[in-house]
């Protein structure tokens, strides 16, 4: 079990959250017509063995989307923040 420290609700079991995948991927601008940019956004993942920035939504709590920095080998979590602030 991972324990994620939600900035709203405190430390909670990850069963309360929904995984949202790689948070480092940048969505191309709406009018970007380069198919390669969209291919990379939809499919390509760096998939690191180590620190990974990822989205989790606290669905059974405050329902906020969070960005969690987690080590994919040890599962230790380095930081948790609101995704909206990070992406502003």
């Amino acid at each position, binding site marked *: *079990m991972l324990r994620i420290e939600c900035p709203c609700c405190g430390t909670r079991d*990850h069963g309360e959250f929904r995984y949202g995948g790689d948070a480092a991927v940048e969505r191309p601008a709406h009018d970007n017509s380069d198919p390669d940019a969209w291919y990379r956004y939809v*499919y*390509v*993942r*760096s*998939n690191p063995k180590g620190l*990974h920035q*990822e989205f989790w939504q606290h669905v059974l709590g405050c329902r906020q989307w969070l960005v969690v920095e987690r080590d*994919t080998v040890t599962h230790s979590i380095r930081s948790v923040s609101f995704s909206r602030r990070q992406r502003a």
Partner: protein
Amino acid sequence: MGRYSIFSLLRHAATGNRGWQRAWRAASPKPSYDVIIIGGGGHGLATAFYLAENHGVRNVAVLEKGYIGGGNVGRNTTVIRSNYLLDGNTQFYEYSMKLWEGLSAALNFNVMFSQRGQLVTAHSADQLDAFAHRANIMRSNGIDADILDRQQVRKLVPYLDFSETARFPIHGAIFQGRAGTARHDAVAWGYARAASCHGVDIIEGCEVTGFLRDDERIVGVETTRGHIGAGRVGLAVAGHTSVLGQMAGLELPIESHLLQAFVTEPVKPLVNHVIAYGADHFYLSQSDKGGLVFGGNLDGYNSYSQRGNTGVLREVCEAAIALMPNISRLRLLRHWGGIMDMTPDASPIISPTPVEGLYLNGGWCYGGFKATPASGWCFAHMLATGKTHPLIEGYGLDRFRTGYLLDEAGAGPFAWLQ
């Protein structure tokens, strides 16, 4: 290395079983090979065997960072079936099934392939309709498939929950009689031994840490046991494809995820088939030792750690008891995990790569054990000839650009949902 036979058994029995040789040669790296395969799992070893057997390419090395059978080939729940829906998958997995049927003889090694049949239960009329669609596709491809109604399922597996209170009542099932299981370690050992007999070097304890290049072309690998040159390099490292891909400068549509398996204490023979639960992602079979072997969902987030978490443990046990209430008092003995490449369409990648000299076999998600023989067969064809075998035309790396996905699970580009 002598052949295994009834006579070798008798001869060794008469001499106290002291004369058995190791199953494959312990090899040290030569300066270079025609083909290097990275990853001594089922797929890598099968590739090496078919390179030698089908194409006469014998100057081959398989480099394994740990030991043979220590990866997913020795961690899976051993289900073998060919009940796929999409063109490309259907034919490929059936080809694999045919190879399984002759594998023990081809390898002179008993892989204990047991065609006990697989049932997938249907829990609504719609689901049974969908299964009928699948069965028709299978049959039109010459693959055995039967649709069973509730009474027929009950006759075959009376111990499932057919009560009034079942949460998801069983409407029927799709049945493939030729499906089954095999002894997974034996598959690795059998391919290793047969490849080694053909002269292939199987080098354990040899981790690939980088690639050697001449301009853009890959001409060998850096390993913990020195540099080794290669004409062509094949990558077959299961859950570590991204890690090796990164060393070669590849950007891949892959995420690594953890899948767990579970086994109960042994009980008397009870479950004769492989049973998959259509109301949830759960399946079980009984091992030759008597334990019930369970599998379920991915842990659901990127992971490179080969240990699971208890959330999935609970889900899997809930599904087990919903399907088969009579096992609620059994104790689980063990659970373990394996790391898998998950692709955005749940189908594998067997393909040349943008890097010259480097070929990729990966992205097997959690269904790659059944594919082992056909995967090796087709990858060997690619490494020997440089051409794509007709059976794997759908598995190219460029399909994500061109849009020709094989999204068998229909879950969209979310690897953790596939």
